[in-house]
């Protein structure tokens, strides 16, 4: 960190020097025209300065920034490369042991058989279902369960056997004579993929004091010892490269300055390219979102054997079960329907609050209220809109939830809970009120005054005008606003995390606690997590669903609103 920092500072100084040199040389070039006459500069001296400064500073700083982003992964990669080399003999004998172990071979055979069985039975099951042959499908599903169990047992046993072999190898003569580095490499490369991440981050924790290590073993310590060396090589070479590049660029560009040099055009070109890059970041963000969601969801679906329909239409959500490979309960554990239903229930409750209140507030503000009322009401609504959602969540959890529970108990409803769909929905509705009202306000104000005049001139009262003329005219826009509000409600996280509960109940009873897509994403990704387990990856699949849902709502809403605008512009 320190080295990069000093390099960056040195680069800034160099850049400033570059600027000054460019300026000075441009001025000199202007004075040294033929016959002592002042030659006209094509560009202002400052632009010559900017030109040199850009060439001196920008590439080197970009290099430093790249190092900042990618440096740690590169260091890890190099250190792991060394571990790989050091542990090569050990791993070779391990491979040898694996291939020559009878038990493992037998297990592999069993696994393959079971998998073959699974494929055939699944096909038969599908066929039986198609023919609505109940007895057949029951028999086949029984066989499928058995086959799945057989396969899982075999893979679990194989894993245990491999661990056993690895332990034996380490304890054996070859392991005794190997150095710590080789042992560390051996451990790392025999770890399952999802545990490697943790190994490295533990090593980094020891090496650089990044966070707290989860365990402390000689292997991790050995890896930790490797890391600083590589990091130092890296950062010193990057720093040297950046500085050398900057100095080189400074000397090269310096010679190009002369009176007719089109410095301004070049600088402006760079500026416009930089601006273009800025705007491409927005696209990159979208690509990043779509890409990472698709990729991780793909991994999730692969881990549940591409039974996407079970994810989308299954009614049983218990991701915890799916963690252990030896459990057959994986089937149906990732049915997201209860989540969709919970999300929909809360969204509907929120809309019941937000749409009437927001709409009537907008109507009142745009059609009835005097300037004084507007001067008070609009900022109040803005305050309501500016309050962080976590505050709404706190309000729902500690004020609204208990109140509703006590009220339900008072009315004789015994099973009332604090974390209920109703509490979350009501508070979310309040949060969305300003959103609906400000969007509807815009829409209502876009209705041409001539329509209102026409209605008033017919002798209509204000409310008749609003109900019969303004509202029908503004309807598409209001539908758009409501769609945007729905999208907002679907994607809202904190209120539901705090106030809706976690139980994946499939219910339409607003007094029960339900769970939503966003709550599950938070639950799955906070706390102790093993990356790469289907449980964690399922969060990305949920994220993908959420993204697609809100995107569709948003595109639809923007389309409706745009059509509406075009009508009156």
């Amino acid at each position, binding site marked *: 960190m320190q080295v990069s920092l000093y390099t960056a500072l040195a680069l800034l100084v160099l850049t400033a020097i570059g600027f000054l040199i460019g300026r000075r040389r441009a001025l000199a070039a202007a004075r040294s025209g033929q016959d002592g006459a002042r030659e006209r500069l094509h560009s202002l001296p400052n632009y010559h300065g900017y030109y040199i400064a850009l060439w001196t500073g920008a590439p080197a700083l970009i290099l430093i920034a790249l190092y900042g982003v990618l440096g740690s992964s590169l260091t890890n990669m190099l250190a792991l490369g060394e571990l790989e080399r050091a542990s090569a003999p050990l791993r070779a004998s391990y491979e040898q042991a694996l291939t020559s172990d009878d038990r493992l071979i037998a297990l592999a055979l069993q696994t393959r058989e079971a998998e073959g069985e699974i494929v055939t039975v699944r096909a038969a099951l599908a066929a039986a279902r198609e023919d609505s042959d109940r007895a057949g499908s029951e028999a086949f599903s029984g066989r499928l369960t058995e086959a799945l169990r057989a396969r899982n047992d075999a893979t679990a046993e194989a894993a245990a056997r491999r661990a056993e072999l690895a332990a034996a190898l380490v304890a054996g003569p070859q392991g005794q004579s190997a150095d710590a580095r080789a042992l560390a490499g051996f451990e790392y490369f025999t770890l399952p993929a999802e545990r490697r991440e943790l190994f490295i981050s533990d090593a980094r924790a020891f090496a650089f004091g990044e966070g707290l290590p989860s365990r402390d073993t000689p292997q991790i310590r050995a890896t930790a010892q490797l890391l600083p060396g590589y990091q130092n090589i890296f950062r010193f070479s990057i720093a040297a490269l950046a500085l050398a590049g900057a100095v080189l660029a400074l000397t090269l560009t310096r010679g190009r300055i002369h009176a007719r040099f089109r410095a301004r055009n070049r600088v402006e070109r760079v500026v416009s390219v930089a601006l273009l890059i800025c705007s491409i970041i927005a696209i990159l963000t979208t690509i990043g979102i779509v890409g990472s969601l698709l990729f991780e969801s793909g991994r999730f679906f692969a881990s549940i054997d591409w039974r996407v329909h079970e994810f989308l239409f299954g009614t049983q959500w218990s991701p915890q079960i799916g963690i252990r490979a030896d459990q057959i309960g994986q089937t149906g554990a990732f049915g997201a329907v209860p989540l969709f239903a919970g999300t929909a229930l809360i969204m509907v409750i929120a809309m019941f609050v937000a749409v009437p209140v927001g709409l009537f507030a907008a109507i009142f503000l745009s059609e009835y209220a005097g300037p004084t009322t507007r001067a008070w009401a609009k900022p109040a609504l803005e305050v309501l809109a500016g309050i962080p959602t976590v505050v709404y969540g706190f309000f729902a959890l500690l004020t609204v939830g208990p109140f509703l529970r006590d009220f339900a108990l008072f009315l004789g409803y015994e099973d009332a809970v604090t974390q209920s769909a109703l509490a979350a929905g009501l508070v979310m509705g309040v949060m969305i009120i300003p959103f609906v009202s400000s969007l509807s306000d815009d829409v209502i104000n876009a209705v041409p005054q001539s*329509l209102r005049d026409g209605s008033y001139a*017919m002798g*209509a009262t204000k409310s008749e005008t609003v109900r019969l003329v303004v509202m029908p005219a503004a309807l598409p826009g209001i539908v758009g606003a409501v769609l945007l509000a729905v999208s907002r409600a679907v994607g809202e996280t904190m209120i539901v995390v705090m106030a809706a509960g976690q139980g994946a109940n499939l219910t339409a009873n607003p007094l029960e606690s339900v769970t939503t897509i966003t709550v599950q994403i938070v639950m799955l990704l906070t706390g102790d997590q093993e990356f790469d387990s289907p449980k964690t990856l399922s969060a990305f699949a949920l994220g993908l669903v959420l993204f697609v849902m809100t995107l569709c709502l948003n595109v639809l809403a923007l389309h409706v609103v745009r059509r509406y605008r075009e009508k009156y512009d």
Partner: protein
Amino acid sequence: MVDTLETQHAEKTVYHPVSQDGAIKVATRAVNVLYGDKHAIIDVTADIPDRAVTSLIGPSGCGKSTYLRCINRMNDTIDTARVAGSVTIDGEEVNDRSVDPVLLRARVGMVFQKPNPFPKSIYENVAYGPRIHGLAATPDELDEIVRTSLEKAGLWDEVADRLAQPGTSLSGGQQQRLTIARAIAVNPEVILMDEPCSALDPIATARIEELIDELRENYAIIMVTHSMAQAARVSQMTAFFHLGKLVEYGPTEEIFTNPRDQRTQDYITGRFG
């Protein structure tokens, strides 16, 4: 310069608004309108006859539209507008607190510069007034009102087979006739028209002018127009407004052939406008 001119005229000429043939429908006395600090019309006094077309002419911003909007109290809908003076219809004060603008506007129809059919079907556009005022007891009665109104507006033949289509699907001229049909569906006594043809092409304008001429038999029509030719063609009475004041008012023929005021003369001969 302008000031002195105006004061001179004010001293010299006293206008006796004339009614052409008998009944006075609308009478205004010393009407003033202020939009915030802006004095939009000043002391306008005029008697407007029944069953005739009265044109209000004058340069832009002279207050003709404001004057028109005093008659059905449309200025009420503007927060900053204040109206003083007396406007009577059949001798009943309009600006009185006790007069309900709803009732007043049922008696005084209005047609606007830009055709403004509601975003509803043609049928519903015409049925709007009868519906809100509860004029039809049965659907058949409503059908009848819609049909006769559209007939009176000369639109029936063109739209009879597509009453369910939106009013905005019609052409500009048809839209304006639709708004006229909408206005006459509640059988008003006075119809105000605020430059009804300014957004239309000449052919559509001619049809509207014909229509106005027909409607004259049943209603008192007050029309703001930018076109002096139109005023001359359609109206029986003409009032010339300038800088918020009613400069001259009389039978159309007189105004156009023998204006008494220099400003009227200058305006109709095209020296300003």
